[in-house]
């Protein structure tokens, strides 16, 4: 946490907000049995303004909905928030058949009697965790109605046939959603109104440079800058609908650098992690043209990591 805290200080995040985070942590220290659930993030989220908005919402006791296109760091920020506030995290990936039983809990037989097996939302509420509701708009709105009382001022969860529990004060829910993915739908107003909505911006060139440098400190600056520009060019191409956003994959770009670090030539690494994400042969040609205009295909590990 200290590293993340220092990172945010260096990023220039408002000191009062950071002081608020410290106070929160002191007031709600993580229980030892929950420590394994407190994230230890591999990547840090870059974007001072977004950090400040998110911290303000969490400190004010609000639940957060991170909405934005692909590769804007929604999950990175969610994990980072869990780590910064030192809270155990329950990650729930939503899908079309997500239902109330899956979220809250269900009956089971423990050998002697029918008992309640808690779901992630119940655990999160009872243990004061951060619930990350990933791709919340993949689920049907009816399935999410069970969350309404937990997400609004009532802050309680009533399980039919069992007791009603109140959410611990440190419990927060952070939902993510992407409007563009296939199978997603619009959230209904009742649910949306229970979140503070943060429109996630696309990562800036400057922040992407920092992100790469932090993860790969020995990367050649020249190559790093070209990769960042390449990402921007793919982004523009996807925005103009010349290609789908399959190849617009920040994880893919970072993975490609990892493969180069392992000794793969740049062409093969970018093919595996970016070009081949598209399953359309013509589109792959367009993506290769963009790469060819930025990065040579025969860069070795020594070229990319001269140190």
């Amino acid at each position, binding site marked *: 946490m200290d590293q993340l805290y220092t990172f945010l200080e260096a990023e220039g995040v408002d000191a009062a907000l950071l002081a608020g985070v410290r106070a929160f942590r002191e007031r709600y220290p993580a229980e030892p049995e929950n420590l394994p659930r407190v994230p230890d993030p591999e990547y840090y989220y870059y974007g001072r303004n977004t950090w400040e908005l998110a911290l303000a919402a969490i400190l004010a006791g609000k639940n957060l909905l991170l909405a934005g296109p692909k590769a804007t760091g929604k999950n990175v920020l969610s994990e980072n928030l869990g780590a910064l506030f030192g809270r155990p995290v329950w990650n729930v990936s939503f899908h079309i058949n997500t239902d109330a039983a899956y979220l809250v809990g269900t009956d089971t037989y423990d050998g002697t009697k029918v008992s309640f097996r808690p779901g992630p939302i119940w655990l999160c509420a009872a243990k004061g965790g951060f619930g990350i509701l990933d791709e919340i708009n993949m689920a049907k709105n009816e399935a999410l109605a069970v969350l309404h009382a937990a997400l609004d001022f009532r802050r309680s969860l009533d399980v039919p046939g069992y007791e009603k529990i109140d959410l611990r004060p440190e419990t927060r829910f952070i939902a993510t959603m992407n409007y563009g993915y296939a199978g997603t739908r619009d959230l209904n107003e009742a649910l949306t109104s229970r979140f503070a909505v943060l429109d996630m911006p696309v990562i800036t060139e400057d922040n992407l440079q920092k992100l790469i440098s932090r993860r790969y400190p020995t990367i050649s600056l020249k190559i790093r800058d070209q990769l960042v520009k390449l990402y921007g060019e793919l982004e523009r191409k996807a925005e103009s609908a010349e290609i789908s956003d399959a190849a617009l994959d920040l994880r893919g770009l970072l993975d490609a650098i990892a493969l180069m670090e392992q000794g793969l030539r740049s062409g093969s690494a970018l093919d595996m992690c970016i070009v081949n994400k598209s399953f359309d042969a013509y589109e792959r040609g367009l993506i290769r*043209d963009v790469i060819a205009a*930025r990065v040579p295909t025969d860069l070795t590990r020594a070229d990319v990591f001269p140190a």
Partner: protein
Amino acid sequence: MIKKNYTGSARRARNIIWNAAGRYDFDPPFMAFFSNGHPDQYFNMVAGLVQKWLDMDRLWDFFQSYGGDRRADEFDDYLWLGLENCVYEKELPERPILEALRCERGERFFAEQQQLSRQQMEYQSMPVLTQQEYRWAGVCGRRGPLLTPREKRIAEALRFSGALDTDGVLDAMRSFLQGFFRFTPGESAETRHRATPLAKLLFKHEHRRRDRLLVRVGTGEGDHPKAMQQRHAGLGRHVGPGPEDEAYVRAVFGRCCLTDSEMRILENELCVGDDGLCRLWVTRGESTDTQDRDALEVRESASRQKKLNEAFRSEHATMVAGSVRALSTRIDTIFSSCFKHLPEPARAGRIRPEAAYRLPVLNDAAVFLKDGEETEPELCVDLLLDASQSRMHSQEVLATEGYIIARSLEKLRIPVRVCAFRSIRSYTVLEILKDWKQSDCEGLMRYFAGGWNRDGLAVETLGRLDDGAVLRDRQHILLVLTDGSPNDSTPLPSSGLLLEREYEGEAAVRSAQDAVRRLREKGVRVGAVFHGNTSHLENVHRIYGHAYVRIQKANQLAQGVSDLLLMLLRELRQD
């Protein structure tokens, strides 16, 4: 080197240019291609970089100002060499790979030069070639040609500095033409006068390419696929199909993909009753040798139409990609919401009160219900496109829309087959444009309109084709894209004392209605997308019942198809 017109690889070339320019909001006036038609990566980048660093509109005005001169092509090539150097110097610090790409382009120049035939060499301007050779030799570190003092001065003048702005470049271009060719762009009124029409001609080339989308084959009358009228001339003119008709159908549409005995069985089953005077032909479009001039002419028209279809799809690539995404998402959502997982007994989940006694009595813990495994009924979709003459004015649109539907279903891994149907010389021809197992949908581009439409027979034939493993355990959905006006030159057979009646109007509708009913009785879900005149709406209602949607414009097809699928799937769920 630089062409002023668009060729087949235009979209890729445009993308390279847009990417280099860093914006996508302009239509590039120049694109570069190699002699094999592939886009020239480096020179397209140069064209894009000119957009990025300089004011292309002003440069374009300059290029137009000498368009009427006989040396215009030569000037173009010279000036692009100058621009290449200028934008290369400007961009290099930001894009270090440019040096390698430039060198690669140089090597490609020398490789291409060696492959040029003598005739191709004769078409080239030797002074330009010398300058290009000199430029690329310098770039690649090769030994260049020996230059005369004038040629050296030209080479020097064509090194437009990277420090120049648009005004500087225009000055350099102007002084180059004045200094070496005593040509002042825009000076001569005659030149100006000639330049404008020529520039128009260049554009016209492009316009003509577009206009060709509007060129229609098939006018006039007669029972001929490329010249079909939509009204019957009168009674009693039908003559049963003979060997020459079969030869004609084979020559035009390709060999039949069923064996003789299969065809016999199919015709014995289907060509009865209202269709007693008809024959069938099922083809995949595999062409055969023929000398029949009529057939060759139709094949040539079909081939032209294929190119038009492809060009149309390429022109609307963005719309096509967006529609495929939208439609596949809609269908996916429909499937997800129509078919829930069925509950099955489990040891945890929602308790079943009626089975709770089993816990203490039988010690059976499986008294709960949980969502079972995937229970979505497996589907396969047949798309039947009316390819009769009435579709003549929207062939490209229909081919593209069919492509969008097929691609969307393929994307969701729903097997889809697409066929076009038309009737000609008493043969109802079912042309398979995309078969179940084909994953690419390029065959849709073969769609062309011509002939009559005997809807009932086509629908029934499609339902009767053996689909082997594909249909096993799957619900078969048949979507017909129709104008609701069945119409054929082969009449309904005479019955009793009645004379033959034309296959049109009321009789044709009733025949199609019976065919659809018979197919539904076999468990096939049949629905129609109606795209036609309001006067035929009643026909569609009678033939397909409520299982149809009407679209007014072709771009509503995605919406129409998803609505229709939803309707059919709900029916399926209720059964």
